[in-house]
């Protein structure tokens, strides 16, 4: 579904993605973690070409991103993206936030788009907030609307860049629950997050990045419990103060 081949990217003379090779299958859920500045955001933003790459190739659902003839609108319509700060349109109600792109990009009629948006609002548990403006919604509600907005394009891939790190702790789970059910439905997901519980439960693979490189990747226990690299170990113990084995034992 997504394939990085020897991808490199520089910001000026800063080498922020170093020879990235990564393949993500249809229906897989990948969690990316790593220290600040590792290049996690940059990596997932290259998937919908929010950031262009300088070298190598990324193939998304058969589309070659370095090919200038690739239809970016089509690519982006197939990829949903959820941001740390939600980025809802503040001048539009929840429902209008969701119907905008399906109407303008997919060409849905107002009624079709509204029907679809209402189903999605129901799915994320916010149909009663249908006409609320972003400022009237809590952070968790805003993020769920933002997820619904992305899903309204019926994407094949969903990208999440730290979707819960701007939220108050008590609001995190409502967002993770929506993401978990999405994963269960078979959505291909790439998630930058430090929510270890979510990663343990939902991720097929965890990718650990440091300084622009993928240092290691594997199943959640591989990375969280038995990391091979010293750098990964240090990061895990500094981020997750709880002993890692505790989290692991909660499974079954």
């Amino acid at each position, binding site marked *: 579904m997504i394939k990085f081949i020897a991808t490199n990217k520089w910001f000026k003379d800063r080498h922020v993605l170093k020879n990235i090779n990564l393949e993500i299958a249809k229906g897989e859920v990948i969690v990316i973690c790593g220290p600040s500045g590792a290049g996690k955001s940059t990596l997932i933003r290259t998937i919908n070409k*929010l950031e262009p790459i300088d070298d190598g190739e990324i193939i998304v659902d058969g589309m070659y991103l370095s090919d200038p003839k690739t239809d970016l609108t089509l690519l982006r319509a197939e990829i949903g993206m959820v941001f740390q700060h939600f980025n809802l349109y*503040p001048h539009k109600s929840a429902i209008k936030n969701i119907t905008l792109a399906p109407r303008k990009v997919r060409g849905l009629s107002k009624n079709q788009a509204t029907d679809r948006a209402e189903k999605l609002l129901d799915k994320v548990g916010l149909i009663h907030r249908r006409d609320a403006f972003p400022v009237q919604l809590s952070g968790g509600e805003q993020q769920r609307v933002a997820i619904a907005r992305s899903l309204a394009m019926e994407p094949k891939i969903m990208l999440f860049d730290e979707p819960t790190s701007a939220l108050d702790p008590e609001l995190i789970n409502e967002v993770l629950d929506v993401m978990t059910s999405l994963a269960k439905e078979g959505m291909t997901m790439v998630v930058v997050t430090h929510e270890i519980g979510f990663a343990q439960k939902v991720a097929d693979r965890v990718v650990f990045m440091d300084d622009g490189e993928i240092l290691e990747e594997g199943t959640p226990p591989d990375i969280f419990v038995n990391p091979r690299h010293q750098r990964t170990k240090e990061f895990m113990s500094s981020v997750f103060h709880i002993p890692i084995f505790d989290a692991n034992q909660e499974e079954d």
Partner: protein
Amino acid sequence: MEFNYEFDWAIPFTDPYLGMIITGIKVTLILFAATTVTSLCLGTVIAIMRISRITILRAAGTLYVEIFRNVPGLFWILFFYFVFPELLPEKWGQALNHYSHYPVVAGIMGLTVDNASYVSDILRSGRLAIPHGQREAAISTGLGRVQQYSHVLLPQMFRVTLPPLGTRMVHNFKNTSLCMAITAPELTWATQNIESLTFRGIEATSIATGFYIVLAGIMVSIIILLEKYLKIDVSSINQSSA
């Protein structure tokens, strides 16, 4: 010296002076309404040019603002009245000079180019106040460049800049009086005309002053109401940029 002016408040209300005042009010309102629309349109285009990634557009937009903002509005009104017809092919220029409403048209053009430079400045600052994430959200749902502007960026630019845009429009309203210099029969011109015909300028001018005060007051109230009405969406812009 003794103050021996005797007021005659009936004069401005008698024929033909009443007609001049009514025409003056009409022309002032036409100048104001027309230039509000045209300067908002032109100002928006210039603002978009100035924030464009295309260097030539950016340079052209900046040049526009430098030229039109740094030369007095009155100059542009005179320019469009006296000079502009001469720059056109002779037949067109003559047609303009013989067109009886040309003073009003020239006034609209002069006020527009002047006001648009300020409007573009205000809108540009509004664009800079919108967090990057707004455009990124629009891009990542597949919206094209024009759609990003028309549905996401411009509506927010107008909302965040409503107070300075409103103030700008009041300025523009007052500037309509400059068109008296090219004999556009707007309200200030009418009062001057009555003064020169009857020496009853004070009465006519007082009426005009009252009109300007009342109308500017109405405009300010409308702006305050609009701000209140749109406030709910504006305040969250800052929140999502946190």
